[in-house]
C-alpha cells in the first residue's frame, strides 16, 4: 500500500521550516554549490544551516533528503564527495543522486545511507531502474514526468524499489539530466553547474507597447504581449519560428505547470509511494500554499473522502496547468 508521502521543496532554511510546519513528510534541499540541480543565486543551505534544519525537521518527524543530483565534471569530483560526507555527518535521511560515480561513492563510503535516484538520472524503464537498484542499492526512483499512469502501474510491478512522482510545479519537457540547452547559450551547464537559465544571463526588457521580452544571453527567448501571462525564461518554454511555422510558436512547450491533484487517488492506486512538489526556487508563500493543499488532499484520501484540492492555479507558470503526460500519451 502506498504511503502517499509528501516530499516538499526547501530552497532556504525558512522555506524548510514552512514546509515542515505545513505538513511535509519529507523535505528536499541542497548545498550552495554545483552539487545540486537548483544552484541558484541566494538559494540553498550552508552546512551550518543544514545542521540546524535537520534538527528542526527531525524534531517534527519530517525527513530531510539531500539533493546531490548533478554530474561532477572530471577534476571536480571532490566537491560532490565532500557534500556526501557532510550530509552523512549531519544525518540526512537520504541522498538524491543521478551520477553513477556519486552513487557508487556513497554506496561504498556510507553503506548505511539511503539512496534515491534523481529524476536527473532519467531512468524511465524497469530495466534502467533495476540497474541502479542492483548496483547501488537505490531504494526509491523519482520518475521522469513523461509516463502515463498505466505505465507507472506497470513499472511498479517490475521494480524492487519505491516510486516517487512529481505532482505539482514546473513542467519541463526535456529528459532531465540530458539537456545542455542552457549551456549552449550561456556557458553554464545544467548537469555540471546545476543551473537552468541562470539569472545572471536573463534580461527582461519592457517594450514601448507594454510588452515584455525575455532574453537569455542576448537571445530573445520570448516576448509577452501586455496582457499575456508570462513564464520562466527557459529555452524549452520559448517561442520560435520554423519553416512551417512562420508565426512564432511554442516549439517545445507552453509556459504551464504540472498539477496532478485530481489524479492523486489513481496515482496512489498505481502504487506511487511518494509525491514530489517542485519548486525550491519558489517563495515560502508558494511552499505554504501548495504543501498545505496537498497535505489536506492526501489526508482526505487516506480517510476515504474525496480530496477537495484548493485552487492552486494562481501559483502556476503562465497561470496554466496541465496533467501532462500522466493522463494521456497524446502530448508526446
Amino acid at each position, binding site marked *: 500500500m502506498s504511503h502517499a508521502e509528501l516530499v516538499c521543496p526547501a530552497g532556504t532554511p525558512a522555506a524548510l521550516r514552512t514546509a515542515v510546519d505545513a505538513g511535509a513528510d519529507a523535505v528536499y534541499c541542497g548545498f550552495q554549490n554545483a552539487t545540486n540541480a537548483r544552484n541558484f*543565486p*541566494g538559494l540553498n543551505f550552508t552546512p551550518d544551516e543544514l545542521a540546524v534544519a535537520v534538527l528542526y525537521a527531525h524534531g517534527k518527524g519530517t525527513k530531510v533528503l539531500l539533493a546531490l543530483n548533478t554530474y561532477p565534471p572530471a577534476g571536480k569530483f571532490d566537491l560532490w564527495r565532500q557534500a556526501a560526507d557532510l550530509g552523512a555527518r549531519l544525518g540526512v535521511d537520504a541522498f538524491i543522486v543521478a551520477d553513477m560515480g556519486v552513487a557508487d561513492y556513497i554506496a561504498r563510503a556510507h553503506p548505511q545511507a539511503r539512496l534515491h535516484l534523481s529524476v536527473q538520472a532519467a531512468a524511465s524503464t524497469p530495466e534502467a531502474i533495476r540497474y541502479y537498484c542492483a548496483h547501488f542499492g537505490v531504494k526509491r526512483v523519482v520518475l521522469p514526468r513523461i509516463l502515463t499512469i498505466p505505465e507507472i502501474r506497470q513499472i511498479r510491478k517490475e521494480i524492487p524499489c519505491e516510486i516517487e512522482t512529481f505532482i505539482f510545479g514546473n513542467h519541463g519537457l526535456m529528459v532531465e539530466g540530458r539537456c545542455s540547452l542552457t549551456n549552449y547559450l550561456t556557458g553554464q551547464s545544467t548537469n555540471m553547474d546545476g543551473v537552468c537559465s541562470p539569472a545572471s544571463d536573463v534580461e527582461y526588457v519592457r517594450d514601448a507597447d507594454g510588452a515584455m521580452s525575455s532574453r537569455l544571453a542576448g537571445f530573445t527567448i520570448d516576448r509577452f504581449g*501586455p496582457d499575456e*501571462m508570462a513564464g520562466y525564461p527557459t529555452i524549452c518554454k520559448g517561442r520560435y519560428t520554423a519553416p512551417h511555422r512562420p508565426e512564432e510558436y511554442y516549439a517545445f512547450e507552453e509556459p504551464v505547470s504540472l498539477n496532478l491533484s485530481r489524479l492523486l487517488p489513481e496515482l496512489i492506486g498505481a502504487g506511487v509511494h511518494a509525491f514530489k512538489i517542485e519548486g525550491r526556487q519558489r517563495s515560502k*508563500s508558494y511552499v505554504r500554499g501548495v504543501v498545505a493543499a496537498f497535505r489536506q488532499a492526501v489526508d482526505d484520501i487516506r480517510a476515504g473522502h474525496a480530496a477537495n484540492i484548493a485552487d492552486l492555479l494562481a501559483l*502556476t507558470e503562465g497561470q496554466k496547468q496541465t496533467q501532462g503526460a500522466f493522463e494521456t500519451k497524446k502530448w508526446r
Partner: protein
Amino acid sequence: MSTRIRTIPPGSGVVSRLACTMVQPILSRVVRRIAAQHPSLFARLGPHQGTDFLIDPVDLPFALHLRPDPQALLFRAVPRDAAPQAGAVIRGRFLLLLELVDSEEDGDAAFFSRDLEVSGDTEAVVRLRNALDDVEGSIAEETAAMFGPPGRAILGHLRRTYSRDPIRT
C-alpha cells in the same frame, strides 16, 4: 483582465519631494533594524550587497532606493524623476511589494501574472528575493511594531488603502 502595470501620475514634484522628506527618517530606522535582526540576509545577497535597487511602488508618490551594503546601508525615498541609475528595478503595486517582502505572495506567481515587473540585473533581483524570503516572520509587522500601536494602525490603513486595486484596468 489586463494586468499591465501603470505608474500613476506622480503628482507635482513638490508633493513627491515633501513625501520623501517625511518618510525618510522612518525608512532609515526600519532598514537598520531589519539588518540588525536578520544578519544572514546579507550572505544571500552575495556580490549584490553593493547593487543599487530601485523599488518602485507604482501607486505611491515616490520610489525607494535600496543599497543593501552592510557597511553603509542605504534605504531612501526618491522622487521618480530624480531616481538614481539603478542596477535592478522592481516595480509593482505597493501592497504587492509589501506582501512579497513578507512572503505572503509568491514572486514568481506575481511575475507570471505580470503584476510584478523586473528589469536590470536579474540575478540581483533573485538574490534579494531569496534573501528576504529566508527572513522568518513578517518584516512589515516588525516594522509596524517599532512604532507601537500607531505603527500597527498605519500598516492596517495602508493595507486597506492599497488593496483597492486602483490602477489595474
